């Protein structure tokens, strides 16, 4: 495909605006429409940039000349909008989390596959050089058999009991679990796949009244392997969101965040090219490929370029962060919610239950 991709950006909040800035500067893209239900930002943009603006999504789908759409509306609106876009035969990039109801997510995944449309979700961590290096190292078996992953994210979003937007309500897809924890979880499912079960999930409020501000959980994998999640968006000791993973293996250990990848390889480890036994550090300066346009981190630009290149090359299946991959993260999120709702099952209580049962049988 030689011609440029005609594309619309839908939802002009924080993510939508930054996507729009990057994609509007992409040499292979023509932004033919922008869409937001609230007229304010839309009107300002139309007035000052001349982009064709729509307040109604369906009207836009009918009228605008489109090949693809970026959906960055509040999470609760993703499912119907992705569906309508796929029905029109458009390629779809959707912000994370994909769908609040995993049944919707499953149906849309099938629909995109059946229609042969490029489908991608905005889990940008998979485009961070250091996290990609972790994936390469794990695939090469650099640290042997992986036994445990610790995935963390901290940052300063909700620091007082205040605020009222969709992001402050769990039912709308707001909260630390959907907004923050989804990212480290997405890395865990990338590195480790779907867990067998989850346990010990804590969705705790620090300041928020209608959603969670911190998330802690254990993910169980076959053969005693596990992952643990520790996330808070009410932590201003971090200047901005900071996501990290620590991976323990039989032959070493990896710790990675956006800036660097620190790798310790045991004397018995098989060495990947360029690595030595003991400590190795790879910095973002060497792990990050340049991008055509930079707004707020190479990974945000890179994921959009990847989406466009998939459309141009017709690579529909097996793409990074496909709907199906994002579904894995969504499914773990619903498992965590169900586990947290069930509440704690402390050992002491279990013993008491057992005793009771014995007493019953005995009596």
């Amino acid at each position, binding site marked *: 495909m030689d011609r440029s991709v005609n594309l619309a950006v839908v939802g002009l909040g*924080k993510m939508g605006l930054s996507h729009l800035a*990057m994609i509007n500067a992409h040499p292979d893209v023509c932004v033919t429409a922008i869409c937001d239900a609230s007229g304010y930002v839309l009107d300002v943009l139309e007035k000052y*940039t001349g982009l064709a603006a729509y307040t109604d999504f369906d009207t836009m789908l009918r009228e605008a000349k489109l090949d693809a759409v970026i959906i960055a509306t509040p999470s609760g609106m993703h499912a119907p909008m992705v569906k309508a876009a796929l029905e029109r035969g458009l390629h779809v990039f959707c912000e994370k989390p994909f769908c609040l109801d995993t049944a919707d997510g499953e149906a849309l995944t099938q629909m995109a596959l059946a229609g042969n449309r490029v489908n991608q979700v905005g889990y940008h961590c998979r485009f961070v050089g250091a996290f990609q290096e972790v994936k390469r190292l794990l695939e090469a078996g650099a640290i042997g058999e992986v036994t445990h992953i610790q995935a963390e994210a901290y940052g300063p979003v909700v620091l007082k009991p205040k605020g009222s937007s969709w992001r402050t309500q769990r039912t709308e897809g707001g909260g630390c679990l959907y907004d923050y924890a989804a990212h480290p979880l997405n890395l865990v499912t990338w590195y480790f796949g779907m867990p067998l079960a989850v346990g010990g999930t804590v969705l705790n409020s620090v300041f928020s009244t209608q959603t969670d501000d911190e998330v802690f959980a254990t993910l169980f994998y076959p053969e005693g392997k596990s992952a643990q999640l520790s996330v808070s968006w009410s932590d201003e000791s971090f200047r901005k969101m900071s996501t990290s993973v620590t991976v323990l293996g039989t032959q070493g250990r990896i710790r990675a965040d956006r*800036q660097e990848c620190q790798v310790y390889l045991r004397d018995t480890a098989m060495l990947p090219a360029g690595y030595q036994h003991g400590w190795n550090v790879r*910095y973002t300066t060497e792990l990050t490929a340049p991008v055509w346009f*930079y707004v707020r981190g190479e990974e945000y630009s890179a994921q959009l370029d990847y989406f466009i290149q998939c459309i141009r090359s017709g690579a529909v299946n097996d793409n990074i962060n496909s709907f199906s991959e994002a579904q894995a993260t969504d499914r773990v999120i619903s498992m965590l919610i169900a586990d947290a709702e069930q509440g704690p099952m402390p050992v002491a209580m279990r013993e008491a239950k057992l005793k009771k049962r014995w007493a019953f049988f005995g009596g």
Partner: protein
Amino acid sequence: MDKLLFGDNQFFGVNHMSEEKARAQAMRFQHIQAVMDVLDDAYDEGMRTFMCTTHDRIALVADHMRVNPTRYSGFKFYPCMPYAHKYANAVTEDGMIGALKRFLPNEGLFNAALRGGMSLAKKDIEGITTLLVDAEMKMFSGLNTPVIFLQNVVVDLLLGLGFKDAFRIFADHVRHRYLAEPGFITMNLPRLLPVLQEMGIDNPIVCANINKLGFRMSGGLEAYQQTLRDQPFRAVAMSVFASGAIAPDEAIEWVSQQPNIQSMVFGASSRSNISSTRNLVERLWPSPATSVAADMSSRPMLVRPS
């Protein structure tokens, strides 16, 4: 402009290489006195320009300088606005319009409040922009701010959106209200310059990553070099050492060989690092490294220095 501008990333836990280092710096500079001590060292090493974000804590530095004018004679601030994380986090909490309302003046100054409310209602970006600039500039009242920069996140967002008028609005306001030169920080230098030209912003001051590695130089090293060669503008190089990935002497020597670079901004946490950077610049980039050596005056710079 001085050839060496002193930056502030180190004071706020900004480190592009390591979060551990960033945290160690945040701890070390937790109290403003630690920041002042390093700024005193920088001053005593001849640095006269502090290029700093409009972070709340810079207000404390500004207060200190206001009450000690003799100690800091000839000292200049190059404010870089806005401190973007403040706004981004507010948007997550309050939504776009809620966040905007939060930062527009809403108490005390009836006139400004009215101006803000009216601008917001009329979607008058000129009014909103100038009020936000004024809010950020409040902390520098009475101090010398000959160049005022728009931060890269905002510049590059506007550039990508094609929101070109905002650059002109910012430039005009900074010139008229603060008698200062507008500056623009960007990660997309080759793409920004034609737009500034189109908006009638002649010979602009533009700060961008310029390093031998091509690190975070969108458009590519070659396009940057061509821009430096061919475009009429005053370049300020940042990230010259690519966060420590390039050896200091190699980094400075390379920058000194590029055409049209007027200044470089660097950060350091100790007097020895400040002086070694200054010495390297004096040795490898002939011509005075600071205005103390070149020109003792601290007049606002409104014309291109020869």
